[in-house]
């Protein structure tokens, strides 16, 4: 028979790390509270009969937040054989608050005293034997991060489960509270098991409706309980719940005083760092510098060596690992020779002979032929039909290749974000951003999903689960995908290249600008939506535990990076793979006057099915400066997956395998818009802000749990993206002299005026009973 172990503990105390250690699972670990919202199950690697359940982190077992309900229901009704209560030893007092409640449940409990290595490093001492005696259950020292103490922990837990021994804690509350608890548990008598009597007595004394309902006590008993509660409240001049909380912390304070010896302490390192990075003056600038650095590194290094390698190596001709300099020289000399021959009016035969002499890179060093070249050669030598070669090379290799070429850049971005997240800085960023987000009705917690969104919109929308307030959560879901996700980065890189025209030194700011465009779009959306009936009301209060700074382990950084990269790679292999085939078919078939059939890509592209589709709806985008079918089609394929935008540009311009970092691609892309910078910016803005990809839309549907809200969210994003694109092209173009004044200029101005009105008009009076009761009147004064 198997043994079921439940893993319970405070948020961010290392439960998921321990779960990964124990089960060999690779669950994602973040360094902020609330990463695990649902419980997860796994089998112990060394004994498959031991099943471990990772519960969401909670501070207490009251049934209020979704995490608390999941954890409490599992502990009360899920029937675990033993509970491992993971306790952060560096913060014993707060962690024991949950422990004292778990001990009352009547289940066998083992306390895992985690992060003991840090306690020793700080020079503090914990008397484990005495702690175990006071808590009335076994206490095992562990370090989940280093995987220490795991075997002993499981062995102790299995023993405790087999003995079925309920804890016998020595934790008395003050007499005023202890009296009524005793009274109520006597009253309950045999109606609840003796080992859980204290749990039920305390819950009844608190007046917790959920427990009262579940026990179905006779009215007379309820009256007795009410009287006991009232007497206690009067004696302590406090409501029952607060009185019990205080009593619990008092009892814990007593235990801690007896078992913990703290070394004399000054400011901790965490406090010293926080003095600086959350400073009222420096906090925001530091954050901007950090993020600018992250994106600069991802773009410059990512588009440099690493992406060159990926582009050439995977989808290009190949890559020369060594001897590159000599090869470049030889090619230069050869090119000069050819040019000279052409000038001298050499015959075609002579030129052909020269072409034969093109230096072979394989002679200059370690040359690895590119995947694309290998596939191309293979197809040719197998004498596959021309159209099939075209499908594979121009369609699939070009489309998927452009996407894969971007992965190195994303890996760098995610590694850096994982580090910032793992060391604890991102939790501070939520605090810093709260001050700003509050002004447009979101909480700083909305920032965490937005940060994840800079990787991928799918996990970002899922991360909104940690936002308790429903209005905040909905608004965050609606706006979070406006942050440029990983898949939108190639669009930015492409636009960056097209506008910069290769001059990357002077126009480096374009890339971070689109990142901040996302942030600004969210701010504007927040303010505008906040003044609608749907979202009116006070922002939810911001209370968040900040983890101590620590160096994340290499494993946790890699896991987090992999988690985010995975969804991207899977998309490249499935949705994008299929859609590149569909796009190729739509582009290569059509009626050029001689009946439906395969088209000549050089001359008949304008007759393709794709062109027809683009032409049919191009009028929507004409006011945005990109009404021709190519740009329209590109936007449509972006709905399937944003990576497709670059892939489609590649196919449309027949320079597919080059990727978004190649100057030829930039040129081709700029030509699509007639070289208009305003149109390119409008195109980029629309594609960044409009409805996200299918995968993200699906996730939004799941999180909103409402078709109506899903459609509202998508509709809002698309209209908003269109409006921003319109203003970019019409007003930006007017300023640059690329567009003359026309009827759409008036529309753009009207849209701008409407937005400004909604932004700056005073908050309309909306009657919303109950929504703002929670907050004091002074709350709004924060601005």
């Amino acid at each position, binding site marked *: 028979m198997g043994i079921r172990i439940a893993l319970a503990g405070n948020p961010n105390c290392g439960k998921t790390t321990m779960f990964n250690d124990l089960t060999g699972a690779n669950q994602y670990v973040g360094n902020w509270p609330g990463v695990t919202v649902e419980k997860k199950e796994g089998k112990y690697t060394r004994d498959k009969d031991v099943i471990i359940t990772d519960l969401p982190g909670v501070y207490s077992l009251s049934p209020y937040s979704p995490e608390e309900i999941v954890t409490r229901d599992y502990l009360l009704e899920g029937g675990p054989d033993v509970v491992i209560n993971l306790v952060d030893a560096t*913060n*014993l007092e*707060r962690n024991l*608050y949950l422990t004292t409640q778990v001990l009352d449940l009547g289940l066998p409990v083992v306390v895992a005293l985690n992060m003991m290595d840090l306690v020793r490093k700080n020079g503090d001492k914990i008397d484990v034997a005495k702690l175990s005696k006071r808590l009335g259950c076994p206490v095992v020292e562990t370090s989940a991060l280093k995987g220490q103490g795991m075997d002993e922990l499981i062995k102790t837990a299995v023993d405790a489960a087999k003995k079925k021994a309920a804890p016998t804690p020595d934790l008395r509350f003050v007499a005023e509270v202890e009296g009524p608890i005793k009274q109520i548990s006597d009253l309950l008598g045999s109606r609840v098991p003796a080992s859980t009597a204290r749990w039920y007595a305390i819950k009844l004394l608190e007046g917790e409706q959920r427990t009262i309902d579940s026990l179905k006590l006779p009215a007379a008993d309820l009256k007795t309980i009410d009287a006991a509660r009232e007497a206690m409240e009067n004696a302590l001049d406090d409501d029952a719940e607060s009185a019990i909380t205080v009593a619990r912390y008092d009892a814990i304070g007593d235990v801690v005083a007896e078992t913990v010896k703290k070394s004399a302490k000054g400011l901790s390192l965490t406090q010293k760092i926080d003095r600086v990075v959350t400073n009222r003056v420096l906090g925001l600038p530091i954050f901007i510098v950090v993020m600018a650095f992250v994106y600069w590194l991802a773009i410059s290094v990512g588009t440099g060596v690493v992406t060159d390698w990926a582009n050439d190596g995977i989808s290009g001709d190949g890559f020369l690992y060594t001897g590159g300099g000599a090869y470049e020289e030889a090619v230069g000399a050869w090119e000069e020779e050819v040019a000279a021959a052409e000038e001298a009016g050499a015959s075609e035969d002579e030129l052909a002979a020269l072409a034969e002499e093109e230096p072979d890179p394989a002679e200059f060093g370690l040359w690895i032929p590119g995947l694309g070249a290998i596939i191309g050669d293979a197809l040719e030598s197998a004498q596959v039909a021309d159209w099939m070669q075209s499908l594979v090379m121009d369609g699939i290799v070009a489309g998927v290749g452009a996407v894969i070429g971007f992965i190195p850049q994303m890996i760098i971005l995610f590694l850096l974000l994982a580090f910032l997240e793992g060391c604890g800085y991102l939790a501070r960023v939520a605090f810093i951003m709260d001050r700003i987000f509050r002004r447009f009705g979101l909480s700083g917690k909305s920032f965490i999903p937005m940060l994840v969104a800079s990787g991928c919109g799918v996990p970002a929308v899922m991360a909104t689960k940690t936002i308790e307030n429903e209005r905040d959560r909905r608004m965050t879901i609606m706006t979070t995908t406006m942050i440029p996700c990983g898949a939108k980065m190639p669009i930015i890189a492409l636009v960056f290249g097209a506008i910069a025209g290769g001059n990357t030194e002077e126009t480096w700011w374009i890339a971070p600008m689109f990142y901040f465009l996302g942030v600004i779009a969210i701010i504007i959306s927040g303010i505008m939506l906040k003044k609608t009936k749907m979202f009116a009301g006070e922002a939810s209060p*911001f209370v968040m*535990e*900040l983890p101590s700074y620590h160096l994340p382990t290499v494993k946790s950084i890699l896991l987090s990076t992999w988690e985010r990269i995975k969804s991207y790679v899977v998309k490249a292999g499935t949705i994008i793979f299929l859609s590149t085939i569909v796009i190729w078919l739509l582009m290569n078939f059509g009626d050029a006057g001689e009946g439906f059939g395969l088209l000549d890509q050089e001359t008949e592209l304008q007759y393709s099915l794709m062109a027809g589709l683009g032409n049919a709806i191009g009028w929507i985008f004409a006011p945005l400066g990109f009404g021709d079918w190519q740009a329209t089609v590109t936007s449509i394929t972006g709905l399937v997956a944003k990576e497709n935008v670059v892939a489609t540009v590649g196919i449309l311009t027949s320079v597919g395998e080059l990727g978004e970092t190649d100057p030829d691609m930039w040129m081709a892309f700029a030509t699509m818009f007639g070289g208009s910078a305003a149109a390119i910016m409008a195109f980029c803005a629309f594609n960044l802000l409009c409805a996200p990809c299918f995968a993200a839309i699906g996730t939004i549907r799941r999180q909103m749990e409402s078709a109506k809200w899903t459609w509202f969210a998508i509709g809002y994003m698309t209209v908003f993206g269109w409006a921003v694109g319109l203003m970019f092209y019409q007003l930006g173009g007017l300023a640059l002299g690329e567009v003359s004044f026309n009827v759409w200029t008036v529309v753009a101005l009207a849209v701008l005026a409407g937005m400004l009105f909604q932004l700056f008009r005073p908050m309309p009076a909306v009657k919303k009973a109950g929504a703002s009761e929670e907050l004091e009147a002074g*709350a709004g004064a*924060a601005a």
Partner: protein
Amino acid sequence: MNDAVGASSAFPLPLLQSGENAVIVKVGGRGELHRHLETLGFVEGADVTVVSEAAGDLIVEVKGTQVALDRSVASRIMARAAA
């Protein structure tokens, strides 16, 4: 309930400067937020130290943990000067 605290020495938490410490007298209000703050250790008699302060938003240390609070939340917590 706040008038029970009444003592002239009690003040709301945002009045503290960075680096100052105090002892909690009372967490005002009712409902979920009140409960959550107490669960986190903002209970009568607990020591708090302000680690960082920006326009009334605070990062405070309580019961050995750092907790970030916005101004409206921090204003509910009444404290008195540490002994």
